[in-house]
């Protein structure tokens, strides 16, 4: 029995090679897209987590301006004896090599946040050190480090990455310079002894890494882990109440990585599902066709006296085999192509050494489960239905669907005007309702995805220009202590002596949070000293006035705010309710711009802490360097730094979208190919008859392929609308984000999606023409005797 089944199975596969192959391919594409795109953010996080585990990333870091004493550690252990810890030293220093000055940090940790050696050798000598990996030029060079007034040399023996500094760009601020830190040096403890020389014994450490061996969750990117760490932070705070505590999520670079990975997830979420539905649809219609085409086989088997179960089992195995092969291909393509490509593009922002492909069994099983279920159910239903007939019936071809008048024929004046062949074309389109629906849905899905992909590109592309050229007109922020109006004006007078400063505006700037869907979102509150001047620094939809309270678009959209609505802001554990007067466009970050009177009234702060700097010549940034020498300036933020990070993060999204667009295009071809070939196989007899009547190849092709084109255009038109909505939905539902994506589709996207789909359909038509040419009249019209 089994022998017969396998013999039938293999001869069936052999006879329908191209159908089997396209079934496998469609399945592979659907599965690849599903597992690949849905797994991107997870695989990014898995790689980060593996890195954290391997380099023993600490759970909480304590940094103190004083010293970490043994007493304090004993106190902590009394409260919580489940901790592992390491004391170490961390110092802000200046370093130089070849007369280039670095704002640096030197640290001595060994057991936690272990530096990962990318290039070079291990530290051996006292004066050996590592620096972070993007400083290739320093390897094997001696750099000078200015330590507590004395200059010491150290030899850079290796380049390293560290889980503490996941972001390549962001290294935090230095306590000894307004500039951002741009070099991390890892040395032996003994190297830093000089600095601690005069400190009292026995402890000479100012930093502490804490790690918990028994966590409720090891995965940093889960709520479970976050809750666990939050609880622990509260305990540690009891002992180290004056010190600076950071969990992994206060670590700016890990947080940014998390947000980026979540953003990718939200952009990608709907894509593979629709993709998958389209492929499932096409697979099941191909399988249906395949079985119906094969009535002879079924009839022969059952007329030979075998049970119907045999032929059903053959189809079951056929479907099962093609799905399994396709899915396995899909897993490999999906996991190996999509997440690694996206991770590679994020590698300009984050240093994750040794990224690996992690197979995700949950997603794989989901994909396999859905595909198998759909195809096997279709196969079983159709084959039961078909085998139910008497063998004699089966041995005859299926009666073709009856002709019927269509609706348009009733509109007489229109119908009369149509050419004869167009009438036939139209009637044929509506004759096969199932095929009509399948084709339209499939082409709609593909072109909708194409439209969405293009839409995401145009949502992302202009953001940098709009934000940093159209809206922002300043080049840097300088932070001071909180001071009165008179003092800040004295500061301004002082810095204005410098050349190339066109405008300097005093503001108060504070960071609060707002609650959106039970999640705290950051919001920056800015209150200018002069409303008028703010308009020269930031472009608002409506000019900022002395009565303005303006919130940026993303927040207004998320909270459905209108003018005169109230906005609740949390700042240092207190809630403030503020009535807004307007909304303005903004693409990066969430802001509330509030006039100073209102600000003073609401927050009880009548001070200034931030200067907006607008340069006359934006290319020449020397003036920012000079500002570092002013003692009242604590830190300087060059805006191009933020612009660079945002630009790179957005470019990484684009890479994923390119993949999705390419897959959508590929899907258009395969879907249209398999639907058309089904159509041609089904109507072979009809086409052969036309050939006998003397229709030439072009006329015969037109007869059937015009239908194809009309169906494509129908599906495409609906797809364009569908894609517009889908794109809008995705873009307006991205949560994990401080970026406002442009939600409109430019006209050019419609044109591109239209042209691409039509071109692909035409390509398929050209391929199909040769198939039509091959139809053999004598074979196809053989009378059944």
């Amino acid at each position, binding site marked *: 029995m089994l022998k017969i089944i396998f013999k039938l199975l293999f001869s069936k596969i052999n006879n329908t090679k191209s159908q089997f192959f396209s079934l496998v391919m469609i399945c592979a594409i659907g599965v690849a897209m599903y597992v690949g795109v849905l797994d991107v953010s997870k695989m990014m996080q898995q790689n980060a987590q593996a890195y954290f585990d391997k380099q023993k990333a600490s759970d909480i870091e304590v940094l103190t301006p004083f010293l970490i004493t043994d007493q304090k550690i004993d106190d902590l252990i009394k409260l919580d004896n489940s901790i592992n810890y390491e004391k170490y030293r961390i110092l802000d220093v200046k370093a130089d090599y070849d007369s280039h000055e670095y704002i640096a940090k030197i640290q001595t940790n060994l057991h936690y946040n272990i530096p990962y050696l990318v290039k070079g050798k291990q530290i051996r000598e006292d004066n050996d050190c590592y620096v972070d990996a993007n400083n290739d030029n320093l390897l094997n060079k001696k750099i000078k480090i200015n330590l507590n007034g004395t200059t010491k040399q150290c030899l850079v023996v290796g380049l390293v990455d560290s889980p503490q500094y996941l972001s390549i760009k962001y290294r935090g601020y230095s306590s000894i310079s307004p500039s951002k830190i741009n070099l991390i040096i890892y040395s032996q403890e003994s190297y830093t002894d000089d600095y601690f020389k005069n400190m009292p014994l026995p402890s000479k450490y100012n930093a502490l890494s804490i790690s918990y061996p028994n966590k409720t969750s090891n995965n940093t990117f889960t709520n479970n882990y976050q809750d666990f760490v939050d609880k622990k932070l509260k305990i540690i705070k009891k002992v180290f109440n004056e010190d600076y505590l950071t969990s992994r999520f206060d670590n700016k670079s890990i947080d940014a990585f998390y947000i980026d990975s979540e953003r990718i997830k939200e952009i990608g979420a709907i894509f593979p599902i629709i993709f998958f539905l389209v492929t499932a649809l096409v697979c099941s219609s191909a399988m249906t066709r395949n079985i119906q085409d094969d009535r002879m086989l079924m009839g022969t088997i059952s007329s030979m006296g075998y049970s119907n179960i045999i032929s059903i089992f053959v189809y079951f195995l056929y479907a099962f085999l093609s799905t399994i092969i396709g899915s396995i291909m899909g897993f490999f393509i999906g996991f190996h192509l999509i997440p690694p490509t996206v991770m590679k593009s994020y590698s300009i922002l984050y240093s994750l050494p040794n990224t690996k492909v992690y197979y995700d069994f949950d997603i794989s099983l989901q994909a396999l489960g859905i595909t198998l279920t759909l195809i096997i159910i279709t196969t079983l239903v159709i084959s039961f239905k078909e085998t139910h007939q008497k063998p004699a019936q089966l041995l005859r071809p299926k009666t073709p669907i009856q002709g019927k008048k269509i609706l348009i024929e009733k509109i007489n004046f229109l119908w009369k005007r149509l050419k004869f062949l167009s009438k*036939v074309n139209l009637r044929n389109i509506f004759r096969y309702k199932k095929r009509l629906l399948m084709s339209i849905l499939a082409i709609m899905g593909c072109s909708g995805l194409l439209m969405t992909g293009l839409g995401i590109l145009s949502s992302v592309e202009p953001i940098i220009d709009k934000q940093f050229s159209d809206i922002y007109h300043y080049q840097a922020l300088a932070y001071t202590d909180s001071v009165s109006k008179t003092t800040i004006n004295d500061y301004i007078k002082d810095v204005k002596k410098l050349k190339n400063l066109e405008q300097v505006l005093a503001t108060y700037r504070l960071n609060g949070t707002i609650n959106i869907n039970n999640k705290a979102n950051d919001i920056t509150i800015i209150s200018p000293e002069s409303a008028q001047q703010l308009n020269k620094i930031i472009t608002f939809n409506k000019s900022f006035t002395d009565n303005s309270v303006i919130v940026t678009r993303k927040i207004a959209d998320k909270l459905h705010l209108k003018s005169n609505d109230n906005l609740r802001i949390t700042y240092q554990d207190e809630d403030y309710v503020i009535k807004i007067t307007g909304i303005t466009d903004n693409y990066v970050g969430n802001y509330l711009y509030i006039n100073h009177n209102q600000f003073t009234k609401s927050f009880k702060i009548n001070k200034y802490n931030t200067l907006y700097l607008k340069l006359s010549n934006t290319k020449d940034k020397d003036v920012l360097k000079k500002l570092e020498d002013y003692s009242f300036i604590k830190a300087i933020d060059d805006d191009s730094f933020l612009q660079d990070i945002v630009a790179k993060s957005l470019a990484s999204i684009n890479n994923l979208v390119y993949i999705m667009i390419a897959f959508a295009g590929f899907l258009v071809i395969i879907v249209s190919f398999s639907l058309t070939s089904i159509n041609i196989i089904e109507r072979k007899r009809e086409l052969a008859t036309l050939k006998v009547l003397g229709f030439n190849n072009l006329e015969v092709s037109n007869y059937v392929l015009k239908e194809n084109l009309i169906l494509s255009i129908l599906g495409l038109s609906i797809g364009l609308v569908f894609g517009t909505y889908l794109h809008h939905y995705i873009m307006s539902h991205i949560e994990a984000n401080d970026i406002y994506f442009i939600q409109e589709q430019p006209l050019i996207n419609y044109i591109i999606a239209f042209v691409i789909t039509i071109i692909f359909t035409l390509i398929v038509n050209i391929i199909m023409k040769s198939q039509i040419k091959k139809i053999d009249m004598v074979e196809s019209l053989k009378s059944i005797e």
Partner: protein
Amino acid sequence: MSYIEIKDLKKIYEMGSIKIKALNGINLNINKGELVIIVGQSGAGKTTLLNIIGGMDSASSGCLTIDKQDITKFNNKKLTKYRRHDIGFVFQFYNLIPNITTLENVEMAKEVALDPFNARKILKLVGLEDRLNNFPAQLSGGQQQRVAIARALVKNPKLMLCDEPTGALDFETGKNILKILQAMSRNLGMSIIIITHNHAIEAIGDHIIHMKDGLIYNEYYNENPQNIDEVEW
């Protein structure tokens, strides 16, 4: 010179190492306006011969001249043109296009013809003037075959080829179909070739050919062909 001249026509199918001789050297002359009946068992090669005469299939060797043109030398494009302008085909199972009406099926053939007849007139000729707007599935077998004849005839072909036109029909209906074909031959002077396995039909033909194993083994002319009404089987 006869209207159709066939000389040593052979058709050999090769299936792997096996050679099947479907036509084993046919020699035949047919005059214009003849009603030719080719009779033979299934497998005698009559359908293959008809397909080659109709330009649907190609010969392995030999010549086939119709109206002074050797169609065995035609390429595909010329063969298409030949089928389009010169040949009308009628099949055992009608092969109507299911999704268009009676009238449209006939007009379909008219679309590509050079000098066609009026479709409605032809349909009246075969007695279907009342069924113009019916779809094939709404017609009986005999009616469908009459549509098929009208479709072949409307092109005003030089030659009509009928492959077992009554094979799927009952006695009375079959007679009706033959009556139409005979009338067309007599009234319009159309050259018609009918193939059948039914010897009784021989009586209505002008020119009778018997085939077996890919060869013609008997051939004769009827001086006075019978009317179909007089024939019984």
